[in-house]
């Protein structure tokens, strides 16, 4: 057993962190709710209890997964760029603008719209990238500021140029049908964007772990000086990792518009970029683990929505739980004594066997 623990230590640690988070959420629900048993049931089982909620859970996974993959590429290079939110938002806005002002057959329209959103997202995060690579400006602060700027710029574009004036609230014109991602299961909103997000997960995995550039990205994150010494052009990696981040986030934002509402309707920033940071940390920046992490977060999110609707517990409880979980996961020393003990005993056993 101990050897098994040692081998999968990080995974086990993550699971323990998640369990602690869930225990705290049970505790919080008992603290807040007047009917804790009912609220708890709604939170934990609610997402599975109806077809609508279950499909909602799958749908919500997709943008979170896109953003998680995006953030993971930058984090693997140790670039703390949190600009997925801005790229997602602005990519979706400009993609929508392009989609409503062009008329093309669907096999051209869909890829072109996605390409536009990807290009806008990539260009947007090129800015923090080049500022970091050229002048060592903190990518964290600049990407944060870019998020705010993207939000207001996007809002302006929709409000003044692509707004559907017939609708009662701030939404864009509807996309022409040729730019819709088909919802392939009747009575749900599951659309091809979900499949695309899984494809991206595999692509990002192949890029990071089976390509030279991906190796350079990971090496730069592992030890920048060593990478430079080994002949890796670090500043190129710094820019590239952040551009890829923007690209993936831009596509993620656009698929939401094309697949769910068929018009841009985010009056406030949807926050998927931050969810991306959360799942990147839970999945330890590994694309395939991030799929599971995204599903888990989406489960918690939908559980939170059910809570808000059905009980007297606010959905923000989920935010509290997720922050505790990622705090525990980032804490290197959390459970490290346990691992240390096992390592010592293992070694002693090996010595004795000799």
């Amino acid at each position: 057993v101990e050897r098994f623990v040692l081998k999968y230590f990080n995974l086990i640690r993550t699971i323990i962190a998640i369990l602690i988070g869930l225990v705290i959420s049970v505790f919080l629900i008992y603290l807040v709710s007047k009917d804790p048993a009912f609220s708890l049931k709604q939170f934990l089982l609610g997402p599975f209890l109806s077809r609508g909620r279950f499909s909602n859970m799958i749908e919500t996974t997709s943008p979170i997964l896109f953003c998680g993959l995006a953030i993971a590429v930058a984090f693997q290079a140790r670039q703390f760029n949190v600009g997925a939110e801005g790229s997602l938002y602005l990519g979706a806005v400009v993609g929508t603008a392009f989609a409503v002002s062009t008329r093309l057959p669907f096999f051209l329209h869909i890829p072109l719209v996605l390409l536009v959103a990807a290009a806008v997202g990539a260009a947007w995060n090129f800015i923090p990238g080049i500022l970091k690579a050229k002048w060592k400006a903190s990518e964290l602060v600049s990407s944060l500021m870019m998020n705010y700027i993207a939000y207001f710029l996007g809002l302006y574009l929709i409000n003044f140029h692509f707004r559907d004036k017939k609708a009662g609230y701030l939404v864009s014109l509807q996309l022409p049908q040729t730019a819709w991602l088909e919802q392939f299961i009747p009575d749900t909103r599951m659309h091809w964007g979900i499949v695309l997000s899984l494809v991206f997960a595999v692509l990002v995995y192949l890029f990071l772990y089976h390509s030279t550039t991906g190796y350079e990205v990971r090496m730069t994150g592992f030890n920048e000086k060593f990478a430079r010494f080994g002949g890796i052009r670090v500043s190129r990696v710094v820019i590239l990792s952040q551009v890829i981040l923007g690209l993936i986030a831009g596509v993620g934002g656009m698929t939401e518009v094309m697949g769910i509402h068929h018009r841009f309707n985010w009056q406030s920033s949807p926050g998927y970029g931050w969810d991306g940071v959360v799942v990147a940390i839970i999945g330890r920046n590994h694309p395939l683990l991030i799929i599971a992490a995204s599903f888990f977060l989406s489960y918690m999110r939908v559980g939170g929505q059910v809570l808000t609707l059905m009980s007297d517990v606010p959905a923000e409880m989920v935010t509290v739980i997720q922050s505790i979980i990622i705090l525990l996961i980032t804490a290197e020393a959390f459970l490290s004594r346990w691992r240390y003990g096992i390592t010592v005993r293992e070694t002693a056993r090996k010595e004795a066997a000799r």
Partner: protein
Amino acid sequence: MNPLIKSILSPEFGFAILRVMTPLLFPALGVAISSLSGATNIALEGIMIVSACAGVLVSAFTHSLILSLAAGLAAGIALAALLGYFHLKLKADIILAAIALNMFAAGISIVFLFLFTGDKGSTSSLKSQLFPAVQIPLLDRIPVLGPILSGHNVLTYGALVSVFLYWLIIFKTPLGLRIRAVGQNPDAAQSVGINVNRTRMYALLLSGFFGALGGLYLCMGYVSWFARNITAGRGFIAIAAATLGGNMPLGTFLSSLLFGAVNALANYLAPLKVPSEFIQMIPYLATAIALAIYAAQAMRKRRGKIKEHAPGGAS
């Protein structure tokens, strides 16, 4: 004269700058002192949120300013202590831990709000008290300067005093010397017997103290309620302000003043026929641009120094 220029040249504009600067200067000092110790605290956004929320709730239920001040400070410092514990004791990456704590603050404040008011949006239904405004005798009779400097909220003066306090701490106390030493070279500091982790913890607690004051001002001076997302990124703009100011007292003050002026200007531009989105964008855009210019300057300076030290040497 153009009415806009006229209103900008008026003393009221100077007054507005100081008013808008206050919730930037406090967290900027918080970022500065933690940066000096080498453990940059980017959780000021969260610290401001929890202290603002604690302050408003306590004020609404006890009607005591002293108690809400204490509660706000306690909440802010507690969050900073949590960051210190996770970073220094449990070896979490400080940036990731701070991101987590910012989320934690945003969530827990709403949960508490709901717990006490049953309202998930804001506490506008609760009557929060305000820290009082102060007329400074003599000063308020001087033309131009008087209307700019007198009549501010007591915490605005607190912010100005904090700049001096910060200077005092880092340059005139043993703790300040240790903070600077640890920030410059932790190994060297360790070798002469300074406890690096403890020093950084103190710096983080102080940053929590400054941040808490900023949060309290925001909800009990600038406005009189707590609402979701009330900080609007000020804790992050503060990082840029501290960086621009080189983490030094005067520099941080001046850069906060600059950002305050830009924000105040944005408020004054509101009646113009510019889409409001662009006006709301100004503070963030200005921060990004200022950060880029500063970084470029700093890089040029560094390159210059390298050349000086190695004349004709290969690079």
